[in-house]
């Protein structure tokens, strides 16, 4: 039994569960057990955040999906009750606000400036180039010493090289932008650290976009420069968008490559099936299931209610913060039978790993193709790929706004 505090009359916040919750040490691929309990007992309940605020946490698939698509729910991060993930994340959003943290019509106007690059056809046309990047990196990996860290040798360079090419950011600067973006997506980052990292990245992108104003190069930064030239964006707004695409473009897919490989190594029979299949549909289905099963964007989608919303027996009041926990929603047995089982044949296209509603991931076609190419190539090229340490020695990103592993030592 559990009780829900009446809206507006908060229970003492010390009695509420702290969010985010810890995962069980023995189950690094599963969402925190407390979220599972909430899903069964208090599917819309309050939790306590780092700053003492007590937003709602929504855990059932149907509710999360419905609220993500509800126009009464706002993504505006300047709202006083917006439930920020951490002090560092609050600072980053203050310094560099993008359409991700805006509502329509402003959100739509800005998002549409960059959507052409991520259309299915445009991304599909990149597949041969992505395949070449993956093949070359695996050649290099096989020619080098072993063991090797798969994160540094493959997982991080693949999406970094691709997003650099799309944006027109020099890959030679990868140490600079990777270390700053790493700072930004760590939940333990302080306000000061976040402010500095954001400033460095924004300055860097302003410089690159400034160059494109004089010398257009047919890349996405040139597209943004055109908008600046036309007076539709300030240089700062364009740099904020460039930074969003750069950070989101490599941190997410990199974690899916490394964590996905680790999860597959724990399921050798399914890994063998994937390795032996030539069917693009089998590989595509495996990608969707790994996206669902791992849901690496595990810190919940953050929103604020603009009006009173009655849902699932609860009334969320206007102005209250709401966390839509898509990680546990993707493990809801009502939407995915046997949800804690990795099942590569499931093809769960309706998962919420990319979110839902108008803010659903802009880069999802690119992420899908990158993951299809990597999962479809790596295990065939290196069929004896194996870990050199035990699972409990792997450093997981428990402190990351995006989940994954810091290192994945492998040999073959």
């Amino acid at each position, binding site marked *: 039994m559990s009780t829900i505090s009446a809206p507006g009359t908060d229970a003492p916040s010390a009695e509420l569960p702290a969010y985010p919750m810890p995962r069980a040490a023995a189950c690094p691929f599963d969402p925190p057990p407390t979220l599972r309990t909430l899903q069964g007992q208090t599917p819309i309940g309050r939790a306590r955040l780092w700053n003492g605020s007590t937003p709602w946490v929504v855990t059932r698939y149907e509710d999360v999906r419905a609220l*993500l*698509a509800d126009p009464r729910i706002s993504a505006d991060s300047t709202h006083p009750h917006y439930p920020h993930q951490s002090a560092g994340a609050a600072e980053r959003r203050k310094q560099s606000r993008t359409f991700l943290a805006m509502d329509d019509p402003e959100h*739509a106007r800005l*998002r*549409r400036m960059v*959507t*052409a690059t*991520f*259309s*299915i*056809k445009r*991304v599909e046309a990149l597949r041969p180039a992505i395949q070449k990047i993956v093949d070359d990196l695996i050649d290099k990996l096989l020619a080098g010493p072993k063991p090797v860290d798969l994160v540094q040798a493959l997982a991080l360079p693949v999406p970094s090289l691709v997003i650099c090419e799309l944006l027109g950011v020099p890959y030679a600067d990868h140490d600079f932008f990777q270390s700053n973006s790493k700072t930004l997506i760590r939940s333990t980052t302080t306000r000061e650290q976040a402010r500095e990292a954001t400033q460095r990245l924004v300055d860097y992108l302003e410089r690159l976009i400034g160059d494109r104003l004089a010398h257009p190069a047919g890349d996405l930064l040139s597209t943004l420069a055109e908008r600046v030239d036309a007076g539709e964006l300030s240089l700062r707004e364009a740099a904020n968008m460039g930074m969003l695409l750069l950070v989101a473009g490599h941190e997410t897919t990199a974690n899916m490559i490394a964590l996905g490989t680790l999860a597959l190594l724990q399921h050798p029979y399914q890994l063998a099936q994937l390795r032996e299949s030539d069917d693009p549909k089998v590989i595509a289905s495996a990608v969707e299931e790994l996206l669902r099963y791992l849901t690496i964007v595990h810190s919940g989608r953050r929103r604020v209610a603009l009006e009173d919303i009655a849902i699932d027996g609860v009334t969320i009041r206007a102005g209250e913060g709401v966390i839509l926990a898509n990680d546990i929603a993707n493990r809801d047995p009502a939407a995915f039978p046997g949800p804690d089982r990795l099942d590569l044949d499931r093809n769960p*296209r*309706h998962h919420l790993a*990319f*979110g*839902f*509603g*108008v*803010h*659903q*991931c*802009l880069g*999802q*076609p690119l992420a*899908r193709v990158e993951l299809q190419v990597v999962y479809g190539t790596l295990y065939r090229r290196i069929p004896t790929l194996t870990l050199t340490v035990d699972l409990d020695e792997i450093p997981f990103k428990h402190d990351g706004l995006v989940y994954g592993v810091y290192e994945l030592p492998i040999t073959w």
Partner: protein
Amino acid sequence: MKVVIDQHKCVASGQCVLTAPEVFDQREEDGIVVLLTETPPEGLVDDVRQAAALCPAQAIWVKEQAEE
């Protein structure tokens, strides 16, 4: 079956093109949905229904043909 789209609501996630490429396409300039046929053949009905269900912006509707 009749398919209706709302380009104003579309967020160019590409889910529909991935699901039913015979029925949906995207505009070259901004990736916004384009309807290739309002009345898809019987064999594509399930794909179109899935595309409508997956659309994150709820910009696709399927109307069953009115009985006459």
